[in-house]
């Protein structure tokens, strides 16, 4: 059995947000996380986590063209790699496994 890749909650949110939007770059990823989870995102923390994910081969990034609205700075587009997709699946599976059989959670659902 291959060793599972563990993601923390913020990394998982970033990967899912990256998958949900087209041409995902920092602002869009942060907005997606904020709008879907209500969690306030600090861009510095997001970039640190994305750098970490890239170092682990779970996302890849490329620089776009500089634009005037950004003061001549380029966008950095992120893409989830196949390894990243697998990591998301493994994390979901692990969470669902943990979820099942917890009596307190089942009571709240009904």
């Amino acid at each position, binding site marked *: 059995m291959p060793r599972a890749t563990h993601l923390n909650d913020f990394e998982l949110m970033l990967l899912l947000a990256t998958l949900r939007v087209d041409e995902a*770059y*920092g*602002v869009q990823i*942060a907005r997606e996380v904020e709008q879907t989870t209500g969690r306030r995102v*600090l*861009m*510095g*923390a997001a*970039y*640190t986590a994305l*750098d970490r994910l890239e170092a682990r081969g779970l996302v890849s990034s490329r*620089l776009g063209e*500089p*634009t005037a*609205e*950004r*003061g*001549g*700075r*380029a*966008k*950095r587009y992120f893409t989830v790699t196949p390894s990243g997709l697998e990591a998301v699946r493994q994390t979901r599976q692990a969470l669902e496994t943990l979820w099942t059989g917890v009596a307190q959670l089942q009571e709240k659902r009904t």
Partner: protein
Amino acid sequence: MIPNDPPRLALSLLSRWLPDDDPLTGDLVEEFAAGRSRLWFWRQTFSALGAAWERPRVGVRPLKLVDGPGRVDPDPTPPWPERSGGPLAYLPASPVNGVGGLGILAAIVLLTVVVPQIWLLVGLSLVAGAGLGAVLTARTVLRMHRHWTPDIRRVLT
């Protein structure tokens, strides 16, 4: 200062501690233009600077408080030396030519801890200096006024 521009000092800090073309700074500028507040920008700036300790950097750049000419010829070999060795390696970076940043920081901390009253003295000195400057300026103007000829008075008044 133009209210619709991001805080200039925050941009200067970002350009110093993060690479000039860092997309993170661009993201902050884009969000600010979309309606975020200056407080939001500062909060994100401090967060980004804090997170920058963990991120790889290309080097320390001089603090740029005023806009200079745009980038003309991107040079692949930066004129500043590449540095490595973690966050502490950047502490001696100098905000003023010839004055060590680490020395200034140490002096401020030392003075605050050992003789906090020094800041009262500094404040009083500033007020006294400003007052003395005003008095001397007024005196000079009055002296000049005394020597004005009728022609000069007619032109100036």
